[in-house]
């Protein structure tokens, strides 16, 4: 495999412009000082409570997602292009969702095989004809980007359901500003700290119409044992809204209400961090204890806004992914600004044949998998692993997609013995309401193991602060 593009050094040679100040600074740092700062960062994270992200049965299995102190930097010019591409993409995804749950023009035009939608468990027929405020289905989207060269940013995945990780974006920045104030004086880094405020504005902007007062907003969490509970409580706290569990909510007289110390209070906008399946036991999974019976009826009647809308997951389904460029063209009339990663849908016989012939070169993913589980990274797998996967693939080809193994860009990272390049990706967070709000930054995930391409925290990945530079 060719050497990967390095965010700091490109393909070798001169330090790239956005990294000059950092490289200069890094040149005069002692490794011991960096290690000490890294240890300080860990203390700060433990104190802030972000360490309580993951819980075992005994409450003791609390884990800290490793944080790397060397930032990932994006120039103003690079960001401008990403911004345009992301906005185009998220508007198209919402247009697609509106269409899919209304006239289904895109199916009639034959741009997507109909059964890919109608047979898809992420497609909710109950949503047909429902009109969410401002026509927005997916209000909070995390767009996973990878980079392979100077101008080669690609979208690896869209997260249109309940993307997580934004609390890390915010805490990483807080920690960096605390540890390296001098670095911020040498670089003009755009702030991200107004995310909670932007989120609140977005949620308010999609409240049901005809409210007598300011909308009441609540954040619904599955509860304290959920792995993202820290983020749920963090965001509720930062926005100053109630963090509710399903038992705090009840539907009475056609309205969603929460049980407060002063009796029942109407909820107008529910930012839910539970999956569609669990939302309403009367409509979806009847065994769910995480949902609120009757909430879907309230939603259909337009008296509460659910964020993101039920059924929004059809837009980030891996089987739909390869059609996103066609989706963008269909709804905007323009070609996509950000490219997709080439993708083989194994449900198509020709693609399956190609994939089976090239398994050692490809990355194979389950259509409904996430978190880096259930995937095969061909070049990093043994013969036995590949053959075992081949059998699974042949048995159920519609369950898989395949992509070429990308040479993800690398960035200098504090490794055990030195500062060394490690592969990474980027998840910017976009808010869609009365306008599209994109935070200048995002969550950079980094594979801490040498040579590893898997950045998921469940697979040994860490995070970095992400700097977008001012013009």
């Amino acid at each position: 495999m060719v050497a990967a593009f390095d965010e700091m050094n490109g393909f070798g040679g001169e330090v790239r412009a956005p990294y000059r100040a950092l490289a200069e600074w890094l040149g005069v740092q002692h490794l011991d000082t960096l290690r000490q700062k890294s240890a300080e960062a860990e203390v700060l994270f433990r104190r802030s409570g972000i360490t309580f992200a993951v819980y075992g049965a005994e409450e003791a299995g609390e884990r800290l997602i490793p944080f790397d102190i060397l930032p990932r930097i994006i120039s103003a010019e690079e960001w401008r292009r990403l911004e345009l591409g992301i906005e185009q993409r998220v508007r198209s995804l919402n247009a697609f969702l509106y269409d899919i749950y209304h006239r289904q023009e895109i199916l009639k035009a034959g741009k997507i095989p109909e059964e890919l939608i109608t047979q898809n468990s992420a497609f909710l027929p109950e949503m047909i004809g429902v009109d969410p405020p401002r026509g927005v289905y997916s209000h909070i989207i995390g767009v996973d980007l990878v980079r392979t060269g100077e101008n080669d940013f690609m979208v690896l995945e869209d997260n249109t359901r309940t993307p997580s990780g934004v609390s890390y974006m915010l805490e990483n920045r807080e920690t960096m500003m605390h540890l390296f104030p001098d670095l911020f004086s040498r670089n003009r880094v755009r702030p991200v700290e107004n995310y909670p405020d932007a989120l609140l504005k977005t949620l308010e902007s999609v409240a049901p119409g005809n409210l007598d007062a300011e909308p009441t907003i609540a954040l619904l969490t599955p509860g304290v044992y959920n792995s993202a509970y820290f983020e749920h409580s963090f965001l509720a706290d930062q926005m100053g809204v109630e963090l509710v569990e399903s038992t705090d909510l009840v539907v009475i007289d056609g309205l969603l209400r929460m049980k407060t110390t002063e009796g029942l209070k109407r909820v107008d906008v529910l930012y839910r961090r539970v999956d569609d399946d669990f939302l309403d036991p009367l409509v979806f999974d009847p065994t769910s204890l995480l949902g609120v019976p009757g909430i879907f009826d309230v939603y259909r009647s337009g008296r509460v806004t659910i964020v993101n809308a039920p059924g929004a997951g059809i837009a980030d389904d891996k089987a739909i992914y390869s059609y996103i460029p066609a989706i963008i063209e269909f709804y905007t009339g323009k070609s996509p600004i950000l490219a997709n990663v080439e993708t083989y849908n194994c449900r198509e016989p020709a693609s399956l044949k190609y994939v089976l012939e090239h398994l050692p070169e490809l990355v194979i993913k389950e259509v409904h998998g996430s978190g880096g589980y259930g995937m095969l990274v061909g070049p990093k797998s043994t013969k036995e692993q590949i053959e075992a996967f081949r059998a699974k693939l042949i048995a159920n080809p519609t369950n898989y997609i395949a992509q070429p193994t990308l040479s993800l860009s690398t960035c200098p990272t504090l490794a055990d013995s030195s500062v060394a390049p490690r592969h990474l990706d980027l998840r910017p967070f976009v808010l869609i309401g009365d306008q599209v709000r994109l935070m200048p930054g995002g969550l950079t995930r980094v594979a801490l193991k040498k040579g590893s391409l898997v950045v998921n925290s469940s697979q040994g990945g860490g995070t970095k602060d992400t700097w977008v530079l001012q013009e």
Partner: protein
Amino acid sequence: MLGRTANDLYWLSRYIERAENIARLLEVGYRIVLLPREGEGFHEEWRSTLESAGCVQGYVQRHGELISQNVIDYMLFDTSNPSSIASCLANARRNGRAQRTALTREMWESLNSSWLEFSAIRPATVTSNSLPELLDWVRSRSALYRGALLNTILRNDTYYFSQVGTFIERADSTARILDVKYYHLLPSSEMVGSEKDNYQWAALLRSVSAHRSYRWVFKDHYRPLKIADFMILNRQMPRSLRSCYDELTLALRDLAVFYGARHDCQMTAEATRDLLLEADMRNIFQSGLHEFVQDFIGRNNKLGNEISSAYHFSD
């Protein structure tokens, strides 16, 4: 505020207060057990300690005979005992974690580190020599949490429910101690006035951390009537029933102002406070100290229930 949040804050404060009270009770019980005695006197002592903590039934079911080491283990580490210090700290932290958004960082950190440090102790390493130190530590952790609460929390319903929980629990604790040990304070014992009685009186005051302040207030030897007065009616003593109800009526009045509505619980608290305000210790002794204390415990429980239903703790 969610009813569940109010409930969790209320109980969080109760657990922290309870851990402290249990530590104090164990300290006193242990001191008395160390006294030279004839026969099986220490059994009685542990029994009354367990009774004051409301744990006697649970203990007997689990261990049967009263043995110092078992009592200490049951009250410190046994998580099957809902009032053990281990249970109190774990429950306090669980409630705090569920209401992370309602707590300040200082409050959360004190809860979290108390629980982590206590969980790291291996029960087998706690000897009679290290016990006092450990009990001191429990009290200081409770003080740390209260300090963080008082210094950092907004004066709104979060604060008021925390105060209410603390003082309901404290009133209950002081009243239970009196309920179990009232007979040491009866006039008949003053007549006898043996060395052992003297020690018991001191122990009573110690169990509410008042053996020194008693002298400052009364400038006198320990006398049953004054001890009872100090623990029940005295306005200055921070663990007296009167003090607890001064704080309770204040917090409940603030809640009523905050929400713009009064409930039964405000009236109940004020009625009990007025009773303590107007009562005279001699009259109480005449009509029966034990009956008075039992009546108080009933009132205090009733108040807890009224608060729970007025503010929708669970519905």
